[in-house]
């Protein structure tokens, strides 16, 4: 690529969403058309595709003297962010129309919502593209700040509470990750790396064997704890079910589908450095512990869950725990499975959360017990929600089946038989809980509540299109990764090949 193209491709995923956010914030008199929101995902997807086509042959690209860089992992994450953002932004207008119809907020609220969503996308792309670990931290903390008002969008007691917990726990947690970053910077300076390069990821990877082991160990523990908070891992996970259940449905989709994964890729980047400095054992033990505890907690709470949005939130914790387990295993096969799992979970969870927003609009409750006979009441919506749950249960043909199988195989091959077997047992518990609760929502006759029409409710084409596209993409990834296979194995080699 020419330098000009490189600059364009590396900056557009950050600049375009920022520009769209400014447009929304500034469009005062006539509201900007809701479909302008699709501009940002289109830009992110386009840049991700260009990188996916060039990086496997041409190697990582960077702009001289800047803090941005793209390798195969970046390209993969950009594609995931772009795909999930496209689905979530396409669902935005329907959500805002529902809110207006329900009397929550007018044009001002819609403007704020759109501006914040696109600012959120820009921050996530900056985190994915950052070459400097300090910039990576700043971008991830920026996502917390931008999404705080999205979580508290409705200004009810519950959503203010969720937003407060979210900002306090995530900011404090991620501050620990910054302390870890400072310690690694200190170790790098003592190893003779100059100030300008001591937080540069490729430089740190190249010089990792000269870092002081004790300082790196302390730094890595703080990084796993800190970025783990943002990725929904125990012990700093308490914000996740509240924030995900209170945020607007498309925002829940973005947070659950990609924000958790973006934070976890930060852990993976640090893992490469720590593995070279202190060996595999330490990070593996940390991540395995966090993964199993998160999985046990999610499975236990799912068994008694009565709120379907919280049920989806705990299912996100379950999947993040599996992703963390794959990260702990760390072989190229495991990392490839982890990246596929990130993509599949992002797509399936987006469909599930978006359709849960439609269910909330239809039934005006988030109680599982009060949503009976959804298939009879709204066949299209019920079918989409049911299929998304099947995908989250990791049934074929959806890609989560292939990736969970990959993580399990890699676990047994890497000599982590016991933790993997334990994790599979806990996944079965979560499977039983999730499937029985969803069945209760979907099946049975439609209740005869007074004042509700007896005719089944149609979903409508604009609302159905993103949902069906998401499900199809998730299923397609499960059958074949097609032209993306090379990119996936390259990205896995970046983390797992050391």
């Amino acid at each position, binding site marked *: 690529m020419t330098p000009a193209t490189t600059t364009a491709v590396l900056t557009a995923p950050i600049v375009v969403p920022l520009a769209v956010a400014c447009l929304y914030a500034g469009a005062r008199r006539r509201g900007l058309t809701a479909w302008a929101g699709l501009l940002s995902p289109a830009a992110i997807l386009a840049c991700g595709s260009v990188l996916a086509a060039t990086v496997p042959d041409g190697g990582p690209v960077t702009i001289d003297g800047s*803090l941005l860089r793209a390798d195969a992992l970046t390209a993969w994450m950009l594609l995931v962010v772009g795909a999930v953002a496209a689905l979530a932004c396409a669902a935005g207008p329907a959500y805002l129309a529902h809110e207006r119809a329900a009397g929550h907020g007018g044009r001002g609220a819609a403007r704020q919502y759109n501006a914040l969503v696109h600012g959120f996308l820009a921050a996530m792309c900056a985190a994915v593209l950052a070459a*400097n670990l*300090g*910039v990576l*931290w*700043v971008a991830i*903390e*920026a996502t*917390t*700040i931008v999404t*705080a*008002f999205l979580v*508290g969008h409705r*200004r*009810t*007691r*519950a959503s*203010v*509470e*969720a*937003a*407060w*917990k979210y*900002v*306090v726990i995530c*900011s*404090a947690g991620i*501050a620990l990750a*910054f*302390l870890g*970053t*400072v*310690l690694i*910077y*200190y*170790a790098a*300076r*003592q190893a003779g790396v100059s*100030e*300008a390069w*001591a*937080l540069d990821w490729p430089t740190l990877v190249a010089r990792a064997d000269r870092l*002081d082991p*004790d*300082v790196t160990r*302390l730094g890595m523990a703080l990084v796993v704890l800190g970025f783990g908070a943002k990725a929904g891992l125990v012990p700093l996970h308490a914000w996740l*079910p*509240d924030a995900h*259940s*209170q945020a607007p449905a498309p925002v829940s989709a973005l947070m659950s589908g990609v924000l958790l994964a973006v934070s976890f890729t930060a852990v993976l980047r640090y893992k490469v450095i720590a593995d070279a400095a202190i060996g595999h054992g330490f990070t593996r033990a940390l991540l395995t512990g966090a993964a199993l505890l998160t999985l046990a907690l999610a499975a236990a*709470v799912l068994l*008694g*869950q009565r709120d379907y949005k*919280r049920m989806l939130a705990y299912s996100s914790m379950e999947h993040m725990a599996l992703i963390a387990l794959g990260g702990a295993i760390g072989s190229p096969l495991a990392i490839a499975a982890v990246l596929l799992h990130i993509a599949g979970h992002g797509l399936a969870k987006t469909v599930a959360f978006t359709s849960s927003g439609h269910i909330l609009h239809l039934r005006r409750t988030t109680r599982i017990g009060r949503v009976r006979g959804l298939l009879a009441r709204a066949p299209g919506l019920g079918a989409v929600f049911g299929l998304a749950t099947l995908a989250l249960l990791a049934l074929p043909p959806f890609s989560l089946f292939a990736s969970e199988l990959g993580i399990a195989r890699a676990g047994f091959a890497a000599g982590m038989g016991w933790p993997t077997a334990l994790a599979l047992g806990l996944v079965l518990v979560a499977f039983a809980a999730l499937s029985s609760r969803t069945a209760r929502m979907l099946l049975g006759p439609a209740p005869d509540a007074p004042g509700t029409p007896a005719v089944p409710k149609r979903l409508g084409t604009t609302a159905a299109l993103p949902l069906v596209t998401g499900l199809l993409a998730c299923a397609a990834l499960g059958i074949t990764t097609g032209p993306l296979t090379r990119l996936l194995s390259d990205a896995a080699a970046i983390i797992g090949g050391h």
Partner: protein
Amino acid sequence: MSDSTYTQLLDLACGAFLLAAVVVLWRRDLASIVRVFAFQGLALMAIATLLGLHEHRWDLLAVAAGIGVLRAGVLPFLMRRALAASGETRETQPLVNVAASLLTAAALTLLAYAVSRPLVELDPSPATRALPVGLAVVLIGFFILVTRRRALSQVVGFLLLDNGITAVAFLAASGVPLIVELGVSFDVLLAVLVLHILTTRMRAAFGRTDIDDLRELRD
């Protein structure tokens, strides 16, 4: 400046820095907590200035001035405004009483010294020997965050945590690169603004800002 003067002044500034954190734990009057926090910002500025003078790095002096403006000026100003708007003046009964809190602070300081031994051994110098102080303030900040009930006290806990990390960065490696420092300060400022707005909304929704009222969401 001779080496021994530098060491003494640095130790003095670090001592004041730690003392401020302990006093925050001790006081229950919110207005004086904000004053002590501003004083800690000044101590942090002094640490950065001393390091800059000792290493003859003028950029560090500029960073020190910026830290002073943010942490001893802007953030306390924001907190005072929040305090005036709320009309609440005292921390309600904290989860852990004052005597036990102070004992815990002592234990946490010892823990910080134990944990940071490898950090000091890597490069023993007057600055890194004072490094456990920064870590102790991080731990005390975390402790305040989990045991206090007023929204404003939680914000102070978060900011102490952040001051502690900045101190560690200065004492260990003369601060992180400027661009990162700028980004971090900007993020902290925004986080405090966000919490400020959320406190206002919390008061509108609950009538006061007691964290104990946040119990709508549970499993």
